[in-house]
C-alpha cells in the first residue's frame, strides 16, 4: 500500500521554546486508521498540525499523497486533509449551522445545488437536520462537535485528523460515530489519523504510533500497546476494561488469553457457556 503521509527528517520548534522534533521520519499508509499516542507535551497535536500545513516544519519534508507540502501546495493540502479540533468552538465561523457547513465548500467553488445536496446528505447522516438554522453557540458541547464533524465531511477529504475530537461526544453519539467512521473508511478509502486517549478508539485503529521526546519510539498494534504497562503509564493511558481484567486474572494465575472485550472474556473463561446467537 502507498504511503499517503510521509515525514522525512522533519524538524520543528515553536518560537522561543526548545526544539520539539529534530529528525522525525514516519509514514502512514493510505486507508489506515492510525492513532498517535505519547506523554503529555510530547507533540502529538503538533505532529498532526504539521500533517495538514497548519504548522510548517523548520527542516525536512512532508509529503501528502506524493505532493510535497510547501507554500504553493498548502491550500490544496488543507482541502485533502481535514482537521477536527478538540474544542468545536474553535471550528465555527458562521451564524448558523448550515452556513458553517457551507463555508468550507464556498472556498472550493462548488455550485449552490451541489452544496445544498452535500449539506442535506451529511446532516441526515449525522442526525443534525433539526439544527441547521440554529446558531452553533446555542448547541451543547456534544452537539457542537457533531456539527463540526459535518462541516468536515461535506468537503469530502481523503485524510481526516481527529485531535481528541470525540472527547466531547456522549457515549452513544461516539459509538455511532465510530461505526460510521469504519464504514466511511471502507467506502471512501479514507485515511484516519487520530490523537486520542480513549481506549476503545485506540483499539479500533489499525496501528499506533508512540511519540516520545520528539521521536517515534514505537509503531505497534493496539493490543501490543495495551499489554505494555510501563509504556501505557508513560503515555497516561489505561487499557480497555476487558484487557485490564484479563491481565488481573493472569496475575492471579488464571490461564486466560488477553481479551479485547467483555464478550471475548466470558467466552475464554467459560467455553462451555451457550453462546448467544
Amino acid at each position, binding site marked *: 500500500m502507498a504511503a499517503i503521509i510521509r515525514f522525512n527528517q522533519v524538524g520543528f520548534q515553536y518560537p522561543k521554546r526548545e526544539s520539539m522534533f529534530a529528525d522525525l521520519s514516519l509514514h502512514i499508509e493510505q486507508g489506515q486508521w492510525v492513532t498517535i499516542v505519547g506523554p*503529555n*507535551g510530547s507533540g502529538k497535536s503538533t505532529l498532526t498540525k504539521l500533517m495538514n500545513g497548519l504548522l510548517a516544519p523548520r527542516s525536512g519534508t512532508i509529503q501528502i499523497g506524493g505532493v510535497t507540502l510547501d507554500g504553493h501546495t498548502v491550500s490544496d493540502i488543507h482541502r485533502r486533509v481535514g482537521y477536527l479540533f*478538540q*474544542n468545536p*468552538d474553535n471550528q465555527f465561523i458562521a451564524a448558523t449551522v448550515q452556513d458553517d457547513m457551507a463555508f468550507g465548500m464556498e472556498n472550493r467553488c462548488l455550485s449552490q445545488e451541489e452544496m445544498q445536496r452535500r449539506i442535506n446528505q451529511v446532516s441526515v447522516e449525522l442526525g443534525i437536520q433539526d439544527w441547521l438554522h440554529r446558531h452553533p453557540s*446555542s*448547541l*451543547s*458541547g*456534544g*452537539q457542537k462537535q457533531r456539527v463540526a464533524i459535518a462541516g468536515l465531511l461535506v468537503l469530502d477529504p481523503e485524510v481526516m485528523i481527529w485531535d*481528541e475530537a470525540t*472527547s*466531547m*461526544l*456522549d*457515549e*452513544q*453519539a461516539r*459509538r455511532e460515530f465510530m461505526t460510521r467512521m469504519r464504514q466511511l473508511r471502507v467506502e471512501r478509502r479514507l485515511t484516519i489519523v487520530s490523537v486520542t*486517549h480513549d*481506549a476503545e478508539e485506540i483499539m479500533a485503529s489499525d496501528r499506533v504510533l508512540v511519540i516520545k521526546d520528539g521521536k517515534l519510539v514505537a509503531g505497534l498494534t493496539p493490543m501490543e500497546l495495551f499489554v505494555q504497562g510501563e509504556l501505557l*503509564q508513560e*503515555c*497516561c*493511558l*489505561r487499557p*480497555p*476494561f*476487558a484487557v*485490564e*481484567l484479563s*491481565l*488481573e*486474572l493472569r*496475575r*492471579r494465575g*488464571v490461564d486466560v488469553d488477553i481479551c479485547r472485550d*467483555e*464478550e471475548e*472474556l*466470558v467466552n475464554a*473463561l*467459560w467455553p462451555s*457457556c*451457550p*453462546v*448467544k446467537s
Partner: protein
Amino acid sequence: MAIVSSEKLGYQYVVNGGSAQSFALKDISFEWEQGQFYAILGAAGSGKSTLLQHLNGILQPTVGRIRVLDVMFEAGVKQKGLKPLRKRVGLVFQFPEQQLFADTVEQDLMFGPLQFGMSEQEARQAAREALHTVGLPEAVLTMNPFQLSGGQMRKAAIAAVLASNPDLLVLDEPTATLDPLSRQELIQLLHRLTVEQGKTVVVVTHRLDEVLPAASHYMLMKAGRLVFQGSRAELLAQPLQLQDAGLALPAALRLRQLLDERCKERSSVLEAKGQEVPITASEWAERLIEVRQIHQMRKREQDGEQALSPTVRSTKLLQQQQSEQSAELGANVYYAITRDSESAVRSLCVLKGEDER
C-alpha cells in the same frame, strides 16, 4: 438540612426573540445533602448544564423553585446580590480556559478570594493551599495559565474555585479532554474533598464508568427531565434506564449482563454472595475466580456422584466430613445437600457431632 433542594424546577429558553419557547428543564425535584458526591448523568442536550447554571443563579427558574444554601430562587422573583452565594458555590465549566484570564496562575487563583473580601496576604495563602490540594507544583504560580497542559489547566481552574473555599463544588464534565490517568486522579481528588473537607461535590458527566467508584448518589436526566435518582446499587439495577437515557453501560455492568445472558448459573453465584456488583477490574478478577472455584467444586461433586454407587458415595461423604470435622463445624452444613444418600450422611454427621459434644 439539605444544602440544595429543588421543587418542580423548570426552565424555558426563549428563542427567536420570544416567539418560540422550549423547555430545557421540566419538573425537577431533588435534595442534596452536605458532604456527598453526586453525579448527574445524561446524554448531550439532556439539560445537565442548564441545571448546573441554576446553582449560583446564572439562570433562574421560570417554573417552580430551587433553594441553594440560604438563597431561594423562585419563578417570577429575580434574585440579586448573589456575591455571598457565589463565594460558597464554586462552578467549574466545561472548558477551563473559559475561566482562566489573568497573566499568571497565581493572579487567577487569588482573584476569587480578593473578590470575596480576603486580604492580599490571605488570598496568596488561599491560592497556595488550593494549588496544593489539586496537586500542582508551586512553580506554576508564576506561569501564564495558557502555558499549562490541558490537564494542568483543568486542575488550575478547579484550584481557582477551591481558593474561595466553597461549600458546594459543581463541575461540568470535569474530565472531558483529560487523559485517562489524569481523569482517575481528578475524580479521586474530588472524592477526597467530600471525605476530608466535607465539601459537597456535584459532577455532570456522560461517563458513568469513571464516577462509579467515587459517587454515592446518581441523577439521570433525559430530555430535560429527571428520570432517576438513587444510590449506586439502585442505578446499577437499572441498565435499561441507563441505555434509554443515552448512556453507555459501564464495563462492569456489561460484563454482568453477559454473565446473566450466558451463564445464569454463574451469575446466580454472584448474586448469592449478596454483594454489590464489582466495579474495578481487580474486584472483578477476585469475584470471577471465586465464581469459577465454586462452579468447579459443584461440578466435581456432581461428576463424582454420578460415577459412584450410593453406598460408596455415602462412605466418601462420611470420610470427607470426618476429615473436615477438625477444621470447622460450619463446614459440615455445606456438604449436607439434597439427595438421599447425602441426607443420610447428614443425619449421621449431626448425630455424630452431638455425640462428641
